[in-house]
């Protein structure tokens, strides 16, 4: 770097750039939160869905699955599992775990009550109705 480009110039670019782009980021975030009500399916965000999210979290489902593409990549995407499988399959599947098939990836048995299973399904249904810009590419997730 040339001598005319001094350390204080570099420092000013750093501070100026950081502040400018952070403010821009906040502005975009505010705009996003204002656009969300039309996209994030909050009309269907019931108490039951909130309970379902809590079950999702306290069983650490994200440790194997992905949800809207984030999480672990060990088990299927569940953001659209409601559309792929439907409520009854999901409940039966969770109840039937672990499969015990030798060598096969195993899911723990969480001993969820019927009410909890309904909560979890409600959460997955709500998640499947978020406007994700058409992601995932197909129903297989």
């Amino acid at each position, binding site marked *: 770097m040339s001598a005319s480009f001094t350390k204080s110039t*570099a420092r000013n670019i750093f501070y100026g750039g950081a502040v400018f782009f*952070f403010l821009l980021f906040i502005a975009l975030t505010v705009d996003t939160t204002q656009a969300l009500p039309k996209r994030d399916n909050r009309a269907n965000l019931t108490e039951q869905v909130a309970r379902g999210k809590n079950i*999702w979290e*306290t069983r650490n489902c994200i*440790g194997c699955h992905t949800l809207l593409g984030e999480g672990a*990549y060990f088990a*299927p995407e569940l953001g659209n599992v409601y559309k792929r499988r439907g409520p009854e399959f999901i409940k039966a599947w969770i109840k039937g775990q672990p499969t015990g098939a030798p060598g096969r990836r195993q899911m723990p048995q969480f001993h969820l009550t019927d009410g909890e299973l309904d909560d979890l399904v409600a959460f997955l249904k709500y998640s499947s109705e978020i406007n994700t810009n058409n992601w995932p*590419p197909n129903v*297989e997730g």
Partner: protein
Amino acid sequence: MTTSTTAVLDTPRGVEEHAATRLKYRSQAVAKPYFIAAIGLFFGQIVFGLIMGLQYVIGDFLFPEIPFNVARMVHTNLLIVWLLFGFMGAGYYLIPEESERELHSPKLAILTFWVFLVAGALTIVGYLSVPYATLAQLTGNEILPTMGREFLEQPTITKVGIVLVALSFLYNLSLTVLSGRKTSISLVMMLGLWGLAIFFLFSFYNPSNLVLDKLFWWWVVHLWVEGVWELIMGAMLAFVLVKVTGVDREVIEKWLYVIIAMTLITGIIGTGHHYFWIGAPAYWQWWGSIFSALEPIPFFMMTLFAFNMVNRRRREHPNKAAVLWAMGTGVMAFLGAGVWGFLHTLAPVNYLTHGTQITAAHGHMAFYGAYAMVVITMISYTMPKLRGREANSNAAQVVEMWSFWLMSIAMVFITLFLTAAGILQVWLQRMGSAPLPFMAAQDQVAIFYWLREASGVMFFIGLVLYIISFFVKGKTDEAAR
């Protein structure tokens, strides 16, 4: 313990060398337990990585004792915690030296070390010994639910503990900086560490609205690893390069500012590449694609920086291993964070690759190249000094350099195999007229998981050699200079 002239080059004016060691400031010694803990936790991280790698191909391995989600939580949380231990050790070593005075309170630093270590260990024991739901119940998660989100799985009380430890650490370092010399390196380091603590506060925000949850979850995760952590990384790298090359501080600090300026200019809006498919407006596809496409620039500059400074060096530092780690950090961070990040950052590509093994490939190399390696660079430079010598013996350095090559090459292979798995996964599961279900696609790519596991074993051997290098004796000869 030799007392040669090497220390004179480094010793700032008016400071008497402590007789027993080469440390300029006695309180820098508090860094040592932090570094030892970091290496220990790193070892644990890799063991759990190997378990998970095997579970990818033998799904019931260690089930139900260690289900995959538990192994993964231990793997990723140990990564975060060992890097935090590394950053803290680096802070405690670097700040007194840059500030030209003793640490404000060495006692507090040691106390927080034990608090952090015990809390971290208890959390890991909690993950392994009771079901996660029980852990959530035991730790009062219903009072303030924050658990069960990727990388932020820690019980709420652990999160509170992390904040308290961070506050005491920042208090200690900030007072040290305020009362001493203020250099660009120490200011950038402090800015990074304060940013780390502040953005972590978003981990306490967990709304029921999944989209809002995810939107602000990235304020921790992205603004850490593609934001403020890079400041910490830049400061640590600059510090080591000042020491091992003897290049004028003005030059190095100018580079540092340009690099971190590019980091934040590209990286803050670059957060948008995580907002493509989580329910946020579609305009993020433009903002995210454009700015994250620029994110490799600071990493490329970091590589240029390291090589440039080493080429311009004014001294041959006896610690060749540290110089090797410093140059390796630049290269691997550029490949992992820069190139592999760019590969799938554009929205049309990311549409197909989001949440596949390609993400995993990028994550592995980026974390190793940027953060694991920069912490090891710092440890490699400081640990001999903390143990009373300028550099380790040649024999020890040879073993350390072997570990460098084994771990780094193994990580290249892990990344390549995961990338291959990811491409095939995308092809089978998301393209074509008859997409396969997830597990059917996984079965098809199993060969690459086996190859990844083999590379993981190679990495593990490299890590074992790294640890062995601390115990290799041999003469700390002056001929190394």
